[in-house]
């Protein structure tokens, strides 16, 4: 493939044309917050709205996961507009995420914590109200525990389940009611979950977690 040169935060990056900016930045040690994208997946869902960057000559920030690299592109990962978008998107995610970090099995391995650290964002609500949902925890599977109250709807588990598992996970409903669930919203064990744990390994937060640490 044709090699091109672009600039990310003043650093010269050589890359094959067409590869999304997000991966080029991460591979070159430049952090861009992201939740929903998985390297190698052909179609980034662009669902988390966190990987905003400015591209010189573009009227407004774009999501780095959907922006293909082109020759001579000048990319900035930080700007007042980018920071505002990320701050708002991050807090909106937090408003629907039950915060109990100290008791969460994903504590210190959580992508939300990583983003908060990298961008100096508070792990609490400042402008938005809590979206109280009171969704019950699904403990039915012997391998994984599903707490929909912590789900950020990135869809990584859905894709992992289709790739490696039995493909029982999917999205249902709309808006505030949107959730990752099974056919007929039955518990995992009744939906034909094989217990492979691929979903828990894919989950960037504490929504899907393995019951045993050794797997």
């Amino acid at each position, binding site marked *: 493939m044709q090699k091109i040169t672009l600039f990310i935060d003043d650093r010269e990056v050589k890359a094959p044309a067409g590869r999304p900016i997000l991966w080029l930045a991460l591979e070159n040690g430049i952090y861009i917050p992201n939740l929903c994208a998985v390297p190698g997946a052909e179609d980034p869902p662009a669902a988390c709205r966190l990987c905003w960057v400015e591209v010189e000559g573009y009227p407004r920030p774009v999501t780095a996961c959907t922006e293909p690299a082109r020759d001579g592109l000048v990319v900035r990962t930080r700007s007042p507009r980018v920071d505002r978008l990320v701050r708002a998107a991050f807090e909106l995610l937090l408003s629907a995420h039950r915060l109990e970090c100290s008791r969460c099995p994903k504590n210190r391995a959580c992508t939300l914590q990583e983003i908060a650290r990298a961008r100096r964002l508070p792990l609490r609500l400042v402008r938005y109200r809590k979206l109280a949902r009171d969704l019950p925890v699904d403990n039915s599977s012997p391998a994984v525990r599903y707490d929909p109250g912590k789900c950020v709807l990135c869809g990584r588990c859905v894709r992992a389940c289709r790739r490696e598992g039995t493909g029982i996970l*999917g999205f249902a409903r709309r808006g505030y009611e949107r959730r990752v669930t099974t056919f007929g919203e039955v518990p995992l064990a009744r939906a034909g979950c094989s217990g492979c744990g691929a979903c828990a390994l894919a989950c960037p937060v504490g929504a899907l977690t393995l019951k045993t640490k050794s797997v």
Partner: protein
Amino acid sequence: MVLLTEEEKRAAREAAGSAVRGFPRSRGSLVPILQKIQEKLGYVPLEAMEEVAGQLGIPPVDVYGVVTFYNQFRLTPPGRRQIKVCLGTACHMKGGTVILDCWKRRLGIEVGGVTPDREFSLERVACVGCCSMAPVTVINDEVHGRVTPTRVDGLLFSFGVKVKKGRQEEGEVN
């Protein structure tokens, strides 16, 4: 979730089987197929979704996702009396949510649900076009305007439903 009889389950699979005919076997056909099923049965049962998923070669949970995404699809069979509570702007301002809560409490079902005897189903709609009569409830295309919680009980009484005395007093406004 309402329990379906074996016959209804068979009807659901048959309806799904005939609905997919004539459509290309692809994801893009999903919505028109589901519309056809709902046209025939009045709702889209899980059995029909499984059949459609099998025919189109997509995961059943994706069909479920589409059915729950769009308001036009029902998951439960409609009741003999379909109660539609308007929550358009005027009805909302005139306390439409209070009326909706009344129906919910009296029938013991949520929006989109149906009573176990299939007599009543409950829906919320957005403006039925007679805002001057707000708050409005439509029952099987019959419009009832200026509904109050007592009117809800009155309507139920006229349908032969006995509302328990103790519950009748709770939360009444006039």
